[in-house]
């Protein structure tokens, strides 16, 4: 990037359209910025738009479809035209509204949607072609030949469409979410909002006041108004000062309330540092707030409406209210020679302000034929032509306004030179948020606008947002509704006194469309929707307002039709001979203004997307150089490689072999552990497991199978009886929370009379599987000497509380997933690290190997144990070959549904083992089974492989899976076909217990 001119030179640089005095900008703080590579100067307090205008830059964008030159229409978030790419590189933000982008030192922005340059845009559609691009044209063509759509037409359309370019790299900034609670939320900090906040605050209630702008004041910043005889700014300062002095008031500038959600929840976006080149260290770029309020006052103000006439999109055509904003708030003259096209009295305010700013007012075109004499005088004094009952029918100027064509009631047409045309057609209350919960607006005939209809519970509307457009009404509403909201929350306070305001008129007779001339007349500037597009929609029967919207894309751009919806409706109303309320509005949806995805994600991205759970031996495993794997939220050791080992398979083979021939240890702390106590604990287990528990003796463990109520298997695990009325249940890692929730449901909602209580102790216990022929000897060196570990004293499935490391309470279970003589030792989690080290030391003489989830998986497959791949929610106990576990002597969750015919169908694929006929072949999970000689087709699909492993014990690959009538077919051969990996292997069906089927190794 080329450096900016020195600040010294910058100070001397002139801003040709900057007024000598006035405005809420800080002339002592010049800011350098760059637009389309050209350097400019603005002041603190400027927006990008006001700074561009101050520098005489008014052609700032190209339109969406026709690539027409566009300028600045508004001075707020409703801006449809002045969209730029703000910032560069990874911080580039497309479609940023220049009218609300705060200027900062070194700001860089570029125009978008043009090629190669703004002034010279090859994509700009020349007039003759444009009729082809009418609303919905793409639905009517590009159908032949079918394949051309993806290959040719669509890519063209896609390249032309879209506006700015999104950044391609990761967003370097960070974001936050936060929650705030209050009694009263006030949305909008204009006169209505400020007095509402004051009224509520004086009751002592907790208040939050949000305004999307960086200055409070709303239209007061834009108009020259008097309150109680003094300049409105005095009232502003006093009010803001009082609010900020109150302890229970939180004023949030740069904060847009973007959505209303259920039960008093509001979404808000705080632009914490968008006015900085980059966020300061330790600070987020933006913060997404969830605000919970008992009451809310909506004081969001209103948006001025343009007029639809030919050429109304030319740079230099601007809303009258915006013209006044640029003059009064930013000290910028948006032109040198102005005309005003108004349908109401409010437009006339512009005359005085322009005149005072030294801008020549060439003409005032008032749509109304009989004009108040006072206004006529005003025109005369300003030296402006007054065209009563006039219309602007055309505009001229290639890249910006040079002249307008005006007709008077007699039809006489003349050209008037001007570089600025101010439009005033009345104001639309900002009712969006009143509709987010499904509320529908109401039409106000007198004000010719939609006003709030059904409101969200607890929300009231004040000032212009309620259609009460005058300052006096705004102040009065605010005071009244603020106080009311406060007292609704149980607080009392003195009402805010009445404030007198200078007179103002809101009279308006809106003109929706000026017909009678050829050029394009825009309704939706950003989506390039013209009045004739609305006509076309009407002609083709897209008359319901939602069809109009969807067919023409009216109101679907980033501004969501803030300036365009009503004119569109009005035109359709005229065409269909209905009234505007009969046509109705489309649905207002959040967000009120677009919200960055990053802000709504906050902290939760990258590694912080979801919490990571670490096992008690994690630090130790890291020291061993373990490779870790995500299993749900857990990070578990997958295997423990050694330098000598060529690949992971070699490592896993070693780990398995060490366990089978000597001993190994694995952290199994991730298993869910639920402490179940109470007189009815056994009875409770009987109901939630499909197998029986009452007969289980104290000190013993048993494998349990749990069904869902629909008869399919939910989870399995071993549960031990530690006392008469005390069980310890283990669940699979994946289902720990789900099972806990299920048990709580069964107890609380189904059988509250049972004397049983349960609590998760998963986090309390570190648990290690010590497996292999030498495991007993290893344990001997870990468990305190007084405990007899002999086979007789501590047989298979024994489960006892013992001590380790000299009196430390622990638990020992003689259970085995590997099929070897094996134990699971549970020690308090704080001692998990000590435990693994103690086990390793005790195991050293036997060459103990730590093993990870891979070896664990290999050994369970060698033993034919089912796990997650088999218990996938689609399988029954019978499918798993565990049908016999389902007790016939008792009722249990899932019993009835498991008896449905389709679940008993003997043809259901059933759990079984597989080995490759050619032992050198590799198996793959996910392969399907097809009988030899049959075509690999759906008709011949007999099941699929769920789990595979290379068995170092047997020297070839093994598989588990489900096969139609599998257990009846042991010894048969089938093909395991795997088209997605171009594989096919012939396999032999065999008993899933590949290793030690009789289970002798367990009982030594």
């Amino acid at each position, binding site marked *: 990037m080329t450096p900016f001119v020195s600040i010294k030179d910058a100070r001397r640089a002139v801003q040709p359209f900057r007024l000598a005095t006035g405005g809420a900008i800080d002339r002592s703080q010049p800011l350098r910025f760059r637009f389309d590579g050209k350097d400019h100067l603005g002041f603190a307090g400027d927006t990008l738009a006001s700074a561009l205008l101050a520098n005489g830059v008014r052609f700032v964008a190209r339109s969406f479809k026709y690539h027409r030159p566009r300028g600045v229409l508004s001075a707020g978030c409703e801006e449809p035209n002045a969209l730029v790419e703000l910032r560069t590189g990874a911080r580039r933000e497309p479609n940023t509204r220049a009218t609300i982008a705060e200027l900062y030192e070194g700001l860089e922005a570029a125009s978008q949607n043009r090629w190669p340059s703004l002034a010279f845009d090859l994509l700009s559609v020349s007039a003759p072609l444009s009729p082809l691009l009418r609303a919905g044209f793409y639905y009517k063509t590009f159908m032949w030949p079918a394949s051309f759509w993806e290959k040719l037409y669509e890519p063209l359309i896609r390249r032309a469409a879209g506006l700015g370019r999104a950044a391609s790299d990761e967003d370097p900034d960070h974001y936050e979410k936060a929650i705030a609670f209050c009694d009263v939320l006030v949305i909008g900090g204009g006169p209505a909002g400020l007095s509402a906040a004051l009224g509520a605050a004086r009751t002592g209630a907790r208040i939050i006041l949000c305004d999307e702008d960086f200055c409070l004041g709303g239209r007061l910043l834009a108009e020259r108004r008097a309150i109680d005889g003094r300049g409105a700014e005095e009232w502003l300062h006093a009010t803001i000062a009082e609010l900020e002095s109150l302890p229970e008031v939180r004023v949030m500038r740069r904060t847009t309330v973007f959505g209303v959600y259920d039960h*008093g929840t509001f979404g808000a976006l705080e632009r914490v540092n968008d006015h900085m080149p980059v966020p300061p260290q330790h600070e987020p770029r933006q913060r997404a707030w969830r605000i*919970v309020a008992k009451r809310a006052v909506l004081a969001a103000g209103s948006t001025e409406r343009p007029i639809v006439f030919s050429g109304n999109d030319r740079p230099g055509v601007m809303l009258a209210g915006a013209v006044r904003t640029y003059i009064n708030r930013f000290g910028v003259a948006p032109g040198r020679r102005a005309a005003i096209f108004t349908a109401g009295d409010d437009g006339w305010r512009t005359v005085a302000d322009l005149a005072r700013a030294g801008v020549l007012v060439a003409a005032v075109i008032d749509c109304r034929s009989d004009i108040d004499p006072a206004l006529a005088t005003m025109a005369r004094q300003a030296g402006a032509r007054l065209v009563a009952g006039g219309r602007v029918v055309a505009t001229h100027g290639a890249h910006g306004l040079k002249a307008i064509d005006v007709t008077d009631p007699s039809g006489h047409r003349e050209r008037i030179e001007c570089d600025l045309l101010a439009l005033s057609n009345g104001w639309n209350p900002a009712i969006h948020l009143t509709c987010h919960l499904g509320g529908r607006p109401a039409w106000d005939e007198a004000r010719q606008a939609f006003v709030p209809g059904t409101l969200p519970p607890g929300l009231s509307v004040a000032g212009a947002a309620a259609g009460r457009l005058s300052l006096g009404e705004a102040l009065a509403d605010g005071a009244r509704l603020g106080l009311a909201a406060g007292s609704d929350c149980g607080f009392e306070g003195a009402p805010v006194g009445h404030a007198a305001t200078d007179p103002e008129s809101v009279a308006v007779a809106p003109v929706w469309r000026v017909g009678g001339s050829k050029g394009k007349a825009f309704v939706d500037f950003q989506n390039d929707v013209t009045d004739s597009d609305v006509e076309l929609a009407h002609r083709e029967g897209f008359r319901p307002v939602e069809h109009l919207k969807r067919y023409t894309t009216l109101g679907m751009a980033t501004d969501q039709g803030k300036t365009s919806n009503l004119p569109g409706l009005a035109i359709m109303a005229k065409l269909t001979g209905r009234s505007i309320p009969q046509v109705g509005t489309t649905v207002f949806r959040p967000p009120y203004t677009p919200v960055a995805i990053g802000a709504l994600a906050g902290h939760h991205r990258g590694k912080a997307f979801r919490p990571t759970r670490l096992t008690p031996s994690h630090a130790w495993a890291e020291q061993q150089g373990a490779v870790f794997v995500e299993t749900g939220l857990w990070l578990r050791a997958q295997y423990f490689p050694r330098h000598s080992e060529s690949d992971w398979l070699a490592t896993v083979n070693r780990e398995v072999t060490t366990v089978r021939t000597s001993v190994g240890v694995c952290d199994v702390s991730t298993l869910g552990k639920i402490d179940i106590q109470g007189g009815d604990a056994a009875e409770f287990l009987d109901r939630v497991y499909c197998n029986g528990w009452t007969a289980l003796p104290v000190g013993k463990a048993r494998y349990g199978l749990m069904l869902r109520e629909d008869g399919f298997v939910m989870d399995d695990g071993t549960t031990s009886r530690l006392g008469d009325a005390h069980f310890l249940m283990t669940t699979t890692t994946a289902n720990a929370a789900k099972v806990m929730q299920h048990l*709580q*449901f069964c107890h*609380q909602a189904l059988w509250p009379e049972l004397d049983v209580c349960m609590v998760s102790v998963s986090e309390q216990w570190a648990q290690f599987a010590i497996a292999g022929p030498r495991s007993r000897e290893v344990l001997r060196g870990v468990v305190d000497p007084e405990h007899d570990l002999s086979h007789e004293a501590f047989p298979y499935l024994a489960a006892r509380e013992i001590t380790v490391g000299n009196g430390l309470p622990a638990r020992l279970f003689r259970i085995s997933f590997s099929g070897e003589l094996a134990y699971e030792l549970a020690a308090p989690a704080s001692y998990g690290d000590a435990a693994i080290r103690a086990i390793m030391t005790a195991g050293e003489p036997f060459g103990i190997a730590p093993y990870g989830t891979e070896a664990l998986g290999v050994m369970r497959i060698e033993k034919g144990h089912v796990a997650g791949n088999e218990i996938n929610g689609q399988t029954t106990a019978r499918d798993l070959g565990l049908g016999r576990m389902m007790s016939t002597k008792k009722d249990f969750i899932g019993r*009835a549904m498991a008896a449905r015919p389709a679940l008993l169908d003997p043809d259901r694929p059933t759990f079984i083992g597989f080995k490759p006929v050619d032992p050198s072949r590799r198996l793959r999970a996910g392969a399907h089974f097809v009988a030899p000689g049959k075509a690999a087709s759906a008709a011949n699909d007999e099941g699929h492989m769920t789990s595979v492993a290379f068995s170092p014990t047997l020297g070839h690959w093994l598989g588990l899976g489900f096969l139609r009538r599998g257990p009846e077919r042991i010894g048969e051969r089938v093909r395991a076909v795997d088209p997605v990996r171009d594989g096919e292997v012939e396999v032999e069906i065999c008993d899933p217990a590949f290793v030690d089927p009789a289970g002798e190794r367990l009982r030594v």
Partner: protein
Amino acid sequence: MRIRCPYCGERDVQEFTYLGDASKVRPEGSDANADAMIDYVYVRDNPAGPHREFWYHSAGCHAWLVVVRDTRTHAIEEAEPARDVALRRRKGEAA
């Protein structure tokens, strides 16, 4: 959405886990025939209006609640512990 847990007070819906229709009563013992069970497990009134439903305060006190909520407006009429509802039903059966 905000749910008032009888034990913890009003909390964001994010703290809760939804199960569904709480007007259903699990058929037990002799009532547990196939048809009754199918109705219990699969058939739903799914009303557009007040709906009795189970919510679990999973991120809070682990209580199961029966909440009455209007499915058109999301407005919540009441929330009480599922345990109390079940005990009341048991008493009803006893009487």
